[in-house]
């Protein structure tokens, strides 16, 4: 018989999934309840059965939490999603251009109109880094706005915005 010990651990990805969509004030009780039943099932019916049960519960729990999170403030969530889309749409390209411009600051545009191969590669890398940094800064900025606007339901808003990216 399996004892209730620290060696019995639920699937970590399933725990992560539940944690992702659970509001902070509820995460302790929901994860605790799932762990308690998981340990009980593992000792009665075996680890494989308990793991399957945990996965099933996690997926259904995440679906319910997404649904209830959306129902609790549908207009607020829809508004923040639309605002996030608009921010990406209007600021996306400009922020990346701004970062490239900042990286280009010390360079005079008419210094050397003819690139060597290594200069061209350096230039491409600069644009790529600028693009990455710009993308990162924009994601960070929108993430902060989303976190402030819909505290506790950030994942609901970030999922559709990330899909669009």
């Amino acid at each position, binding site marked *: 018989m399996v004892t*209730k010990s620290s060696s019995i651990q639920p699937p970590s990805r399933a725990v992560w999934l*539940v944690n992702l969509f659970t509001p902070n004030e*509820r995460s*302790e*009780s*929901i*994860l*605790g*309840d*799932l*762990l*308690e*039943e998981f*340990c009980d099932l593992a000792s009665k019916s075996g680890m494989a059965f308990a793991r399957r049960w945990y996965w*099933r*519960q996690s997926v*259904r*729990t*995440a*679906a*319910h*939490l997404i*649904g*209830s999170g959306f129902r609790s403030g549908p207009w607020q969530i829809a508004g923040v999603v639309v605002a996030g889309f608009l921010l990406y749409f209007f600021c996306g390209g400009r922020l990346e251009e701004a970062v490239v411009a900042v990286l280009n600051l010390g360079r005079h545009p008419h210094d050397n109109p003819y690139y060597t191969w290594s200069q061209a590669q350096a230039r491409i890398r600069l644009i790529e880094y600028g693009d990455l940094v710009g993308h990162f800064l924009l994601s960070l900025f929108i993430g902060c706005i989303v976190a402030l606007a819909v505290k506790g339901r950030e994942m609901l808003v970030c999922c559709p915005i990330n899909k669009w990216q």
Partner: protein
Amino acid sequence: MLTAEHFFYIVCLMSSRDYLGEFEHIVVLALLRLGDRAYGVTVRQEIELRIGREVSIGAIYATLDRLETKGYVKSRLGDPTPERGGRSKRFFRVSAKGMAALNRTHRALQSMTVGLDLVRSY
């Protein structure tokens, strides 16, 4: 003619005549059956045992959250326990307002089923 005061009175009256939804009804009855032992695991197991349907813990908490927002249910945190990885249980109990909503729902269902021979019909 309806004035703004009449309208306000009707809205107040309607909100005070709230009925429980199907799953809310089941969860409140489970809380009453369990008494002081009512927390996520026991509520889920009680419902599964009585109605023979696997219910997710997320569905239970989503319903309990809604009931708590309406003031039908009150909750308190218990002590952390080692079998739960040091996490505490959240115990629930039905409030007086919840009992009133439950009685209202029961009376409505009873009055709707008066004169219907449900067993013979189906």
